[in-house]
């Protein structure tokens, strides 16, 4: 027997509506369901507020922890690249692994690299670029000798690039017209019993593989707080290094400091596009040039991800608990909705809507709370010196105990997105439970 026989047309709406009619019907019913969801959220105000608070605080913590982590990483990267080879390094292909003078950039390559750095899509993003001629060697005084890294530098350009010139403990930093001056760490000065004006000898292998010595005089001493730098770094004028090491017009690295670490990938791409065809030149990002710093950031990120994962679980459970309890307490109400003509999926949609509305409200509150607290830290910095006890280094860089949070729009959007997804996912199960309610069973109380 057929399920349908001729009958009077319904009073409202055609039996087989057109696509436009179906769309209007869908919109009408959806707005009614959203309205009902919103009323239900407000109905249990205390429960909704508690759930929202859990989510909002979770998101705020996420925002705070991410901005602080990003701020700390920015600081590590900044101090790491300033002391090392910059955000972007231009070197000879083998230099990263050999560290040998043989793998150096000659005058032709330096000229090509300088031209690439002056390109209109690169130059505006550069804060400073310096040439360095580096070699491993031995520093020896009448008192002692100690292995060191010797960097030949251009003093005026180094002042724009490195924090070292500002960390003078005694004496002064190098000047452009210096010839036989050296700027050394306080650790090395102590070991070799040197002070400004003292003379000592640097010994290294020159470009012709011969051992060569250079007498220099201490211009000043610095202190970074990083033992391996304070004990083992010597800066001398680059022209002195070039002459001593028989590498005229050469450099082992062009270290490039960018305005923002976010520009690294773009600048690397632009430089590679120009220098890939130049023989004997390789462009490296700080991640490639300082893999230990990259690893430190990644390890720290991994710790953050675990913390974020725990937060997500807590937030998800809070929403799940609140919405599910609400569903279980309202079985009869859902039975009534079904009896009034709501479809199963629409009954679920009411519950899902409640979860989504809670999540959206909490998301907005969490972002505001997170930004407000982060703004306070951003203004004053988060001073962790009490916790650190003293100076702390990581992967050859000094960790600043005062962290200034860094806002990254992508990170904030991602955090908000994660919370929204978690809240929405956590609403699916209660919605499914509401859909499965048997109407006759839900109304059983009436019999």
């Amino acid at each position, binding site marked *: 027997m057929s399920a349908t026989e001729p009958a009077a047309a319904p009073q409202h709406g055609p039996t087989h509506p057109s696509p436009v009619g179906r769309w209007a019907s869908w919109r009408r019913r959806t707005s009614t369901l959203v309205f009902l969801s919103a009323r239900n959220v407000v109905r249990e105000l205390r429960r909704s507020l508690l759930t929202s608070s859990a989510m909002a605080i979770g998101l705020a913590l996420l925002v705070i922890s991410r901005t602080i982590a990003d701020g700390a990483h920015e600081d590590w990267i900044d101090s790491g690249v300033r002391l090392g080879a910059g955000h972007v390094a231009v070197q000879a292909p083998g230099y990263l692994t050999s560290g040998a003078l043989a793998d150096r950039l000659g005058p032709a390559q330096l000229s090509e690299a300088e031209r690439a750095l002056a390109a209109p899509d690169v130059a505006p993003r550069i804060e400073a670029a310096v040439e360095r001629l580096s070699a491993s060697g031995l520093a020896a005084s009448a008192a002692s000798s100690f292995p060191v890294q010797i960097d030949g530098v251009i003093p005026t350009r180094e002042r724009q690039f490195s924090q070292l010139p500002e960390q003078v403990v005694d004496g002064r930093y190098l000047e452009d017209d210096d010839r036989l001056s050296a700027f050394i760490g306080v650790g090395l000065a102590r070991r070799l019993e040197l002070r400004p004006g003292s003379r000592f000898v640097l010994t290294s292998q020159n470009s012709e593989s011969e051992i060569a010595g250079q007498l220099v005089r201490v211009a000043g001493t610095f202190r970074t707080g990083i033992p391996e730098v304070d004990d083992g770094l010597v800066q001398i004028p680059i022209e002195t290094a070039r002459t001593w090491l028989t590498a005229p017009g050469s450099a082992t690295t062009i270290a490039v400091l960018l305005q923002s670490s976010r520009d690294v990938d773009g600048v690397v791409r632009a430089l590679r596009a120009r220098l890939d065809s130049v023989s004997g030149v390789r462009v490296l990002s700080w991640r490639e040039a300082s893999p230990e710093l990259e690893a430190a950031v990644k390890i720290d990120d991994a710790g953050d991800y675990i913390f974020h994962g725990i937060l997500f679980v807590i937030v998800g459970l809070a929403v799940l608990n609140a919405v599910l309890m609400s569903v279980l307490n309202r079985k009869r109400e859902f039975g*009534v909705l079904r009896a009034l003509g709501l*479809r199963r999926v629409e009954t679920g949609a009411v519950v899902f809507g409640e979860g989504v509305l809670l999540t959206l409200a909490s998301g907005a509150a969490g972002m505001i709370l997170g930004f407000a607290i982060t703004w306070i830290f951003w203004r004053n910095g988060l001073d962790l010196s009490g916790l650190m006890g003293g100076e702390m280094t990581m992967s050859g860089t000094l960790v600043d105990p005062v962290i200034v949070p860094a806002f990254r729009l992508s990170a904030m959007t991602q955090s908000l997105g994660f919370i929204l997804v978690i809240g929405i996912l956590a609403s699916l199960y209660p919605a499914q439970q509401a859909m499965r309610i048997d109407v006759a069973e839900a109304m059983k109380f009436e019999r």
Partner: protein
Amino acid sequence: MSGSEYAVRTVDLWKIYEQEPAPVQAIRGVTLEVEKGDFVALAGPSGSGKSTLLNLLGGLTRPTRGEVWVAGKNIAELSERALSRLRLEKIGFVFQAYNLLPVLTARENAEFTLLLRGVPAEDRRRRIEALFRDIGIDGLEDRRPAKLSGGQQQRVAVARAVVGEPSIVLADEPTANLDSVTSAALLEVMERLNHQHGTTFIFATHDPRVMERSHRLIRLVDGAVDADIRQNVHGEAATT
């Protein structure tokens, strides 16, 4: 055979609940027709199958076998979607415990099905005002259910059931939670709606007053029709 000349028609209707130790036959081969505009009471002891039959007529539960015709459609064969649509447009429900949606005002409760059906706001307002005046709850439109008495809540529930001009209104013990005065007033309201608008009412009830005022009394025993009595307005048997 078409069911369209009747408000409701069932043919050899069975509802069997599979449970241990033995299946329960809640409805056993019920065949009946309810004419449009009738005012019918389903009576019988507890467990006789009144509520189950009402649920079957309203499409709230599916029959084990047999046919249920409402507004020209055998609802036993309708899809979930079509059944929901039929409930929305053709069937009104009144429950013992009123079951108004607590988050909505009296007006919003009463017009909920109209909202889902896309009735324009002005039309909704006009209908609700007229209906609330008609059943004596005008002035209570903006109150939430918690701020209404039991009788007022049940009137709002009746308004919700009839506002969409359904083919049938199914009322499960509508007076069970009300005192005698309120029950009598509510019955008057439903009688008036039946008389003025030709709305078909089917009650499941234990209440002798409802049975007395019904036009037809169907007595169920153990899930089967034991007696089917046509009555006059004083509750006296006219035909059997």
